[in-house]
């Protein structure tokens, strides 16, 4: 955190120096992060709230560390989505950190949950997996890492609310097939490897039906212990 504050301070100083040196004197774009991340908004919404495209996720309010990890993964090509890989390819770490901080600090309201297209039985199966897991198949409950309120934990574990079923299902599929990976130990890949396609459909559908909690903020680091090690969440 301190390191991040120092990096941000350094960035601000560098930027201030640059503004003096190169920027024209008048008629400049607003010197804000909002203006700098306009390239993100056609897909992710003005405040990172998401758009009508179900495959583009909400960014607002997710933990900054999680967002930063995703930006790094898209920049290096580890996480593959060519339009994102292309946009981020030549942006430096401190800037990606500032982008992550920006979207983490935005709090547009969570969307109303959409009615689900799946049966009650499927939803019940999704709820069971999400809240209790399936010990017999080595599947931990979603809530055991993503939090009892599914709002995630600082700095690296994302909340699962406000995402459409199609997006969650596509991501779980990508983890299962190994096209989405993260730092070792790659906890999500281990978990998703135990899921069947039916599990994925059920969990994604149930998560999308969850109403917004009173406090959608991710809980502070260390609020609860993780059931196993995760490369994206430092101890």
């Amino acid at each position: 955190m301190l390191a991040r504050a120092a990096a941000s301070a350094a960035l601000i100083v560098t930027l201030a120096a640059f503004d003096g040196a190169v920027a024209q004197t008048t008629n400049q774009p607003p010197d804000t992060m909002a203006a700098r991340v306009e390239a993100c908004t056609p897909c992710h919404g003005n405040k990172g709230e998401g758009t009508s495209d179900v495959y583009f996720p909400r960014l607002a309010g997710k933990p900054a560390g999680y967002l930063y990890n995703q930006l790094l993964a898209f920049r290096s090509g580890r996480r593959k989505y060519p339009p994102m890989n292309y946009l981020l390819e030549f942006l430096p770490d401190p800037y990606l950190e500032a982008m992550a901080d920006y979207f983490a600090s935005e709090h547009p309201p969570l969307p109303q949950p959409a009615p689900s297209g799946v049966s009650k039985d499927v939803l019940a199966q999704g709820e069971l997996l999400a809240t209790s897991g399936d010990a017999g198949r080595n599947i931990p409950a979603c809530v055991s890492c993503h939090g009892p309120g599914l709002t995630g934990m600082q700095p690296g574990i994302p909340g699962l609310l406000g995402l459409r079923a199609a997006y969650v299902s596509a991501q779980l599929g990508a983890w299962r097939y190994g096209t989405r990976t993260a730092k070792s130990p790659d906890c999500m890949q281990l978990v998703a490897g135990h899921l069947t396609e039916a599990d994925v459909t059920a969990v994604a559908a149930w998560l999308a039906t969850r109403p917004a909690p009173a406090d959608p903020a991710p809980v502070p680091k260390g609020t609860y212990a993780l059931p196993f090690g995760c490369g994206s969440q430092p101890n």
Partner: protein
Amino acid sequence: MGSKLSIALLALAAFTTTAAQAQDKTSDVIARGEYLARAGDCTACHTASEGRLFAGGRPMPTPFGTIYTSNITPDPETGIGKWSADDFYRTMHNGRFPNGGLIYPAMPFASYTKVTRADSDAIFAYLRSIQPVNQKNKPHELRFPYDNRQLILGWRTLYFSEGEFKPDPTKSAEWNRGAYLVEGLGHCGMCHSPINALGGTSQSDAFKGGLIPMQNWYAPSLTSNREAGLGDWSIKDITDLLQTGVSARGVVYGPMAEVVHNSLQYLDDADTKAMAVYLKGIAEGSSPPAASTVLPTTESSLLISLGKTVYDKNCASCHGPQGEGKPPHWPPLANNQSIEMQSAVNPIRMVLNGGYPPGTKGNPMPYGMPPFAGLLSDNEVAAVVSYIRTAWGNRGSPVSAREANELRSAPLN
């Protein structure tokens, strides 16, 4: 005894000084080599994504198949640890491995041949000083008949002329320094010259611009003021562009963002200015006007009126109602050569995919252009690009929805 000791001490002192001087000299040479390796942008090809510095293994798609770049760390087994400075110079200068084997011209030795022996030695000293990485080179995946290296002999006969840079005595030292960097280490001609079906460029076409194979970005001519020719740019605008990626006249995106990010931002002010002076110097007078559109007049006027609607709704808030922009961060579109030039590939791609200029020391938090691929139809993309190419005195030609559609599937990285 006393005098012997003092002589010994003196000798030791002398030796220490010489050793220290030699050390200084070595570290100077290494630092210079690192600087020159930046100027040559070696890392762009020889470092893979998430890979170790200069350990190679980066796939380079070419029209002839995929080439994997080589390990140039000083590892004796898998890198260039057993090479001598002579070997390295021969590779740079003549495009041959130490054993005489022919190097594929994806390695820009046709440009690097201009590099001086002293500079080649400095780069070699620097490469010798970095962390060795034991990583075997991947075999290339080239299609028949290109997998036969003997074909390179033919290519060399047609397109390779060996020889160090020869200064032009009628030009200033600064111009010559710029020429040396642009034509040699900078290997700008690799993209900014038209590449024919054999993957070569003829001397007379140097810096005349061309579509970069496999990437589908157009690298504009550096000599025509109708493209990226810098004849009517101020030296400051050119140096801003090269060093920071943004300028009052335009901004770099795509492959040129890579060059600024990995290479040009690290060049010192004198070298940047020398390149600017040279680039401004090679720009020729205006070439003939761009070819007129293939579209019938009624169709293009409908397109352009739709284009204005799209522009006013989506683009004017940043680029201004008159295309004036807010330079350098929101580039002007009026009188912007990259919008007007004959190839519309780059403006179409920018509308579809958006883009960020590179984050540089001089511009660490660049402003980005949003991608409109998901918001605009082919017809709307064609319309808005046609509009910005012809409005406000711009002298480009309209483009068709088919051209816009074809670029939707262009590779992004």
